[in-house]
């Protein structure tokens, strides 16, 4: 779950502002985002018996898939609006994917009342 690629000087200063999904590029980390959950994928069970889910999330600028481990993936519902800090993006199986770094936090803040766009889909290969 480590981020691939090193952070550049520019990206290191990102942790204070919110990033739009459309702006995400591989290697970015320390990200703060706010998004709404569109779809929750079925869980895959890892060798260590963790559940991993691919969750499609979106903000006004676009959508992306986030990989969620265990409880957060179990608890979230489509329509939940979440705040993420210490997110990072990386390419997995050719698709840009969002992750929660160790020490990062995904919190549900609200439901439903957020405009979003499903284009562009940043996780499209």
């Amino acid at each position, binding site marked *: *779950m480590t981020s691939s690629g090193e952070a550049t000087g520019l990206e290191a200063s990102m942790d204070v502002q919110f990033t739009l999904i459309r702006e995400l590029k591989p290697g970015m980390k320390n990200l703060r985002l706010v998004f709404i959950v*569109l779809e929750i994928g079925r869980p895959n069970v890892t060798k260590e018996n963790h559940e991993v889910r691919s969750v499609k999330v979106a903000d006004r600028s676009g959508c992306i898939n986030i990989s969620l*481990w*265990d*409880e*957060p993936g179990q*608890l*979230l519902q*489509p*329509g*939940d609006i*979440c705040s993420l800090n210490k997110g990072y993006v990386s390419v997995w199986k050719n698709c840009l994917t969002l992750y929660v770094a*160790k*020490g990062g*936090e*995904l*919190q*549900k803040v609200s*439901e*439903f*009342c957020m*405009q979003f766009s*499903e*284009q562009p889909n940043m996780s499209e290969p």
Partner: protein
Amino acid sequence: MTNERPITSRLFTTSVIEGRVELDEKYDKAYNSVISLTRGLSEEESHHALNKALDDRKVHDELCLGLLVSILADSSIASRHYHDLTLVSRDSLKVVTETLIHQIIGERFSRLSESTRRQLLWLVRELVKTGINNVEGVVWCLLRQIAGGDVSAKNVWLAESLVDILRENRPWLDKFPVIVASVTYTYLRILEDHSGPQFAGLRQKEVTFVVGLLRERFQDCLMIGRDLVRLLQNIAKIQEIEAFWRDLIHNPTSLCPGFTGILQLLQTRTSRRFFVVRLTPEMEKKIVFLCTDVKFGMQKRYQEWFQRQYLNTPESQTLRCDLIRFIIGCIHPSNEVLCSDIIPRWAVIGWLLSSCTSPVATANSKLALFYDWLLYNTETDNIMNIEPGILVMYHSMRPHPVLTTSLLDFICRIIPNFHPPLADKIRAGVHNSLRQILEKRVVQSLEPLFDNRHMDVELRKLIRETFPEFCANSVMGEVKHDDFVAPVSSQSVTTMDLLAETGLDFGASAVNSDSEVNNSNHIGGMEEAMFSEDEEEPPAQKPPPPPVAKIKVEENPVTPPSPVAEMEDVKPKVNDVNSVEEKVDLSKHLEYLENDMKTIILDLQNEKDTKQR
């Protein structure tokens, strides 16, 4: 990988994704100041300590808050702390009631832990018993939290707890006419949900209580207006309600001197506050968001989420009427919204009507849609309450013709059947509505609806008989365009119409240029929504975008299979071209439509919904 950090809250439920709320810090601080001040002291010593500290206003507020938190969090000490509160409060518990109304109950009710909720009701009972200032506001907030269509244990418990408090404190309740009316409205409505055998005991309690209010405080209940009749009709099978109904019809003055009868009630428009009291703040927030912030064409996911959360069970279908009445009566969009590309009210209502899974609820929802038509009075009624009705019919003609025909059928039949002794008045009311609709140019003409030669012959006859003055008797009955015959001839336009046909998500109609119909672009007018003529409108009527672009916006692929499957579950009789064959190739349907559309529609129209009352 999971974060270990203290996420517990005294009052709220928490989880890995929902930690403490912002208020928790404030509450904990307040709680701690109370505890530290009174720990180990006897009751009398506590009072002394508290009183001394309260000289400072800020400290007063914090200590009252702390006592409140303690009462809600800890049943073992609640009595004592309530007693403390009543003795030491210098503002008649204003901090307490305001915190309850705006913070605890307001929008966080669903996050209260179960024990907090129990304590809350315990406290409200004490507040009511003590007759604390403003507790009626707290009660009103709690009424809203009794969710319509929800027969979960949690919700039923709330309904029962509250009715017990109110029953035990009638003299208190009687002092507040608005609360009497709101309570009556709520419990008449909720009784509809408590029809199952497992609710027999609760139902009896509620019936006895609400009929007591109706008979003893009828002058207060009168303020509800016409929707009182609607609610009574929905539970008219209950013996005591039926008895009350008989008195209402045949012996009105026995209920209240000066009450002339049901007509008086029906002529009184129901205030918004009653529509509001039947939606939880959460539901309200979401429906308002849907109607004011979601673009037409983008509503599908929001509707799915809303449906999944609130409309997913057989018992929950009753909520649709509450939603429709709320949208009609409380969401009156500004001209700015009306002129924008936000999903119009009629489309949201169309969705609520067409996704209903219960025939009874569907019939009641149609009545809810047309309810303000029945005795429409230009002086006292509002055009915004009748506009959605005509527009649902209009805009459903192409994508969902069966909805239009069933609504037309409904409005014709309701006139003699709603309340036969008043048939003439109701006829006049509906005619009034139509006249207003034409006058204000909500639609330019009723011809496409009333004089449509492609419509079922029987229905056309019924319309002519019901609305002769709105039907052309001249040969000029020839309809210019916007028939039931789908105008599809080219593939590109067809794809979009089919999406609407099968998805029935009212997303396509905005795209069709119905030049006879004034679409969502209403321009002009200050207070009243005024509707301009088509010619004056800017070309904001977007031409249908190339289907490829449009489809990209919808995140589902174009092929009909999933919406069809949905619709098959929901409504077997829907005019769904695809309902006969299941998952089919789009291109096959193009031909199907071109050749057989008329026949299909006529066939399906002969299966039309009959009004269920």
